[in-house]
C-alpha cells in the first residue's frame, strides 16, 4: 500500500528522527570528549520506530521505554534540553540528574519513562493503559521494547493480562537484529516471527519495515485507532537495525564484522530515505529542519554543560512519597 501521508506530515516525522539523531550524536561526542560517563545505548539508524509510533499518539497517551530510549523520549515530546541535562547528570534533567541515560522520565508529556531492566516497562504500560480506560478516557499506553525483551517471561504474561483485562495498550517490539551479541534470527527466526507468536495468542499484531518512517507511522496509526476504538491491546514489530555497538563501551567487533552497522546505514538509513523524498516534494525544507535542530541541540549542550550538579542532600529526596516517610537511611534514632 503506497504511503498516504502528506509531505508536511512527512517533514514532521523527519524532524522527529533528526532530533534524535542530533541529540545522540551530541551525546557520543560528549562521551568521547570525556564530558559525560556511564551507560549510553544509541538508537542511531532506528529513529523511525519512535518517530513513526509517537506521532500517532496524544500527549495524554503514556509511553514506557527501555534502555535504548532517548528516541522514544524525544519523539514523545521530551525536550533536548531535558534529555541532555539528564545525560550530564544536572538538576534540570528529566530526573533531576540522578538517573542519566537509562532513567529518563517526563510525565508532563506522557513519557512515563525508561527502565534499565529488559522487559521491565512492559507490564507498567499495560497497567497504565488499563487504569486510563477505567478512568473513562480513550487514552492508551505504549511500551517500547527490544526483540530481546520478547524472550522475557514478563512479556508473555503482560500480553496475557492485557488481553484478559482488555487493557488498551500497544506493545511495540523494536526488532533491531540484535539483543546485545545474540542475533535475533538465531533466537526467534526471520522478521515477523515474534509477530506470529503474538498473533497466535489472539492479539492483533503487525510487522512493518522500519526503513520507511511513513510506513511505520501508518501502521502504528491504524493500530492506535483500533486500540482506542476496541479498548484492547495490539502489537507492532518494527524491523530496524542496530547500527552502533550495543552500548558505547561494547566490543561488538567480537561478534559481528567491524563495519556491519555502517554498511547497513549507508544502504538503508531511514533519515536519508526521507530526505531524498522530501527534497523532491518540499525542496530546501529538510535542510532547514537540519539547521534548526542543530541549533536547538547546540544550545541544549551548552545549557547542560553549564547546569547545576545535584548536591549530596538530593540523594536522600523522594525515596518515599507518603507524608512522614520522607526520611532516610540507616536507623539513627536515639
Amino acid at each position, binding site marked *: 500500500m503506497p504511503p498516504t501521508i502528506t509531505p508536511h506530515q512527512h517533514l514532521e516525522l523527519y524532524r522527529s528522527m533528526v532530533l534524535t539523531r542530533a541529540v545522540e550524536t551530541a551525546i557520543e561526542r560528549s562521551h568521547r570528549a570525556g564530558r559525560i560517563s556511564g551507560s549510553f545505548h544509541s538508537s542511531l539508524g532506528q529513529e523511525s520506530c519512535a518517530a513513526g509510533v509517537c506521532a500517532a499518539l496524544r500527549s495524554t497517551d503514556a509511553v514506557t521505554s527501555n534502555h535504548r530510549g532517548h528516541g522514544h523520549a524525544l519523539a514523545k515530546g521530551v525536550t533536548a534540553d531535558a534529555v541532555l541535562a539528564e545525560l550530564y547528570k544536572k538538576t534540570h534533567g528529566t530526573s533531576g540528574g540522578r538517573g542519566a541515560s537509562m532513567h529518563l522520565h517526563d510525565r508532563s508529556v506522557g513519557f512515563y519513562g525508561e527502565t534499565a531492566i529488559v522487559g521491565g516497562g512492559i507490564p507498567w504500560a499495560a497497567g497504565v493503559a488499563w487504569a486510563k480506560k477505567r478512568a473513562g478516557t480513550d487514552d492508551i499506553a505504549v511500551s517500547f521494547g527490544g526483540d530481546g525483551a520478547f524472550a522475557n517471561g514478563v512479556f508473555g504474561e503482560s500480553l496475557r493480562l492485557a488481553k484478559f483485562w482488555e487493557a488498551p495498550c500497544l506493545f511495540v517490539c523494536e526488532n533491531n537484529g540484535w539483543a546485545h551479541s545474540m542475533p535475533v534470527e538465531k533466537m526467534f527466526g526471520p522478521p515477523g516471527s515474534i509477530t506470529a507468536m503474538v498473533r497466535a495468542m489472539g492479539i492483533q499484531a503487525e510487522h512493518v519495515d522500519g526503513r520507511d518512517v511513513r510506513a511505520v507511522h501508518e501502521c502504528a496509526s491504524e493500530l492506535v485507532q483500533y486500540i482506542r476504538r476496541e479498548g484492547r491491546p495490539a502489537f507492532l514489530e518494527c524491523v530496524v537495525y542496530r547500527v552502533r555497538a550495543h552500548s558505547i563501551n561494547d566490543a561488538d567487533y567480537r561478534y559481528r564484522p567491524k563495519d556491519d552497522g555502517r554498511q547497513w546505514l549507508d544502504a538503508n538509513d531511514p533519515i536519508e530515505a526521507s530526505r531524498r523524498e522530501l527534497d523532491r516534494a518540499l525542496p530546501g525544507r529538510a535542510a532547514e529542519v537540519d539547521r534548526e535542530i542543530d541549533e536547538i541541540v547546540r544550545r541544549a549542550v551548552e545549557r547542560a554543560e553549564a547546569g547545576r550538579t545535584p548536591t549530596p542532600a538530593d540523594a536522600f529526596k523522594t525515596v518515599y512519597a507518603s507524608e512522614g516517610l520522607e526520611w532516610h537511611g540507616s536507623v539513627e*534514632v536515639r
Partner: protein
Amino acid sequence: MAVLKFAEAIRAALDHEMAEDPSVVLMGEEVGALGGVFTVTKGLIDKYGPERVMDSPIAEGALAGFAAGAATEGMRPVVEIMFSDFVMLAMDQLINFAAKIHYMSNGQFSVPAVVRLPGGAGTNHGPQHSQALESWFAQTPGLVVAMPSTPSDAYWMMRESIRLDDPVMFFENKNLYFTAGEDVDFTEGPRGMRAAVRREGADLTVVSAGRMSGMCLEAAATLEESGYSCEVVDMRYLWPLDLETVAASVKKTSKLAVVYEAVQYGGWGSEIAAWAARELFTDLDGPVHRVGAHRVPIPVGVSLEEAVIPTPATIHASLLELAKF
C-alpha cells in the same frame, strides 16, 4: 465494633476502603470467585463485582508490574500473592520498579499499592509455602513493610497501608487467620506506624512482630512464674522502624531480646540488635539476644518445623537466660 478473627478483620478493612474509595481494587489468583484460599476476600466479589475484585491469571511477575503501573495512574490496587513464597516471581517488578519509580523519576510517579503476603511456617505446607521473607523487603528502600499480629492491628494497618502513597508489603501470618477473634473498633485505631507495647515489664524487653508477638507473650507469661517481668514490644511495621519505642523500653529494663520468624542470619531483628548494641550501649546490662529461624528450609511436620523456627519454649529459654544475666 465487631468481634473478628484476623482474616475477617482484613476483609473488613478491604471492604471499608473499597466502599470509601473507588480506586481501591483487589487483584490476585482466586481472590474473586473463590474468595481467596484463606477466605480473606470472601464475598467481596458479590458486593463490588469482578471489575473491582479481579481474578488474575497465574502471572505474578506481570501482575505486580500491572498493579504498580495502574497505581502510578492513580489506582490503589491491593494484590494478593496466594502464598508469600510466590512473590519471588514478582520480585523484579516489586524491587526494581514499584519500590524505586518514585525515586528514579525524581518524584513524578508513586505507587500506592499494597501487596498481601500470607507467609510463615506452622501449616504443614512445606519449604516452598512456609517462608518468612519479610527481612528481604525491610532491606529495600522505597518499600513499607507491615506485619500485624492482632485482628485489630490487621484491620487498622490494612486501612493505613491502602492510604499510603508508597508500596506496602503486608505480611499476614497464616496461623493467625483463624485464631480467636477480638473486638475491632471501626471508628478509632492506632495511627502513625508506631510500635506497640503489648505487655509492660520491668526486667527485660523482648521485641518481635507478627505471629512471634503472641509467642513472646506466652513466653513472658511463663517467665513471670520464675519471677521476671518481661516487656513485650510489637514492632507492627518493619519499615518504618519505630526504634524510639524500643529505646524507651530498654532504658527502663536494661535488657533486650529480639525474636523473629525470618532466618536469624542477616534478618531484620539483627538490625535492631546491632543498632541497640551501639545506640543503647550504656543502657544495656546484658548481651542482646536474638531468636530467629535457623538457616534451614522449612520442613513439614511439627517435630521438624519446631526444630527450625522459634517456639514459645525456645523463646522462653532465651529470655530466662537473659533475665538471669
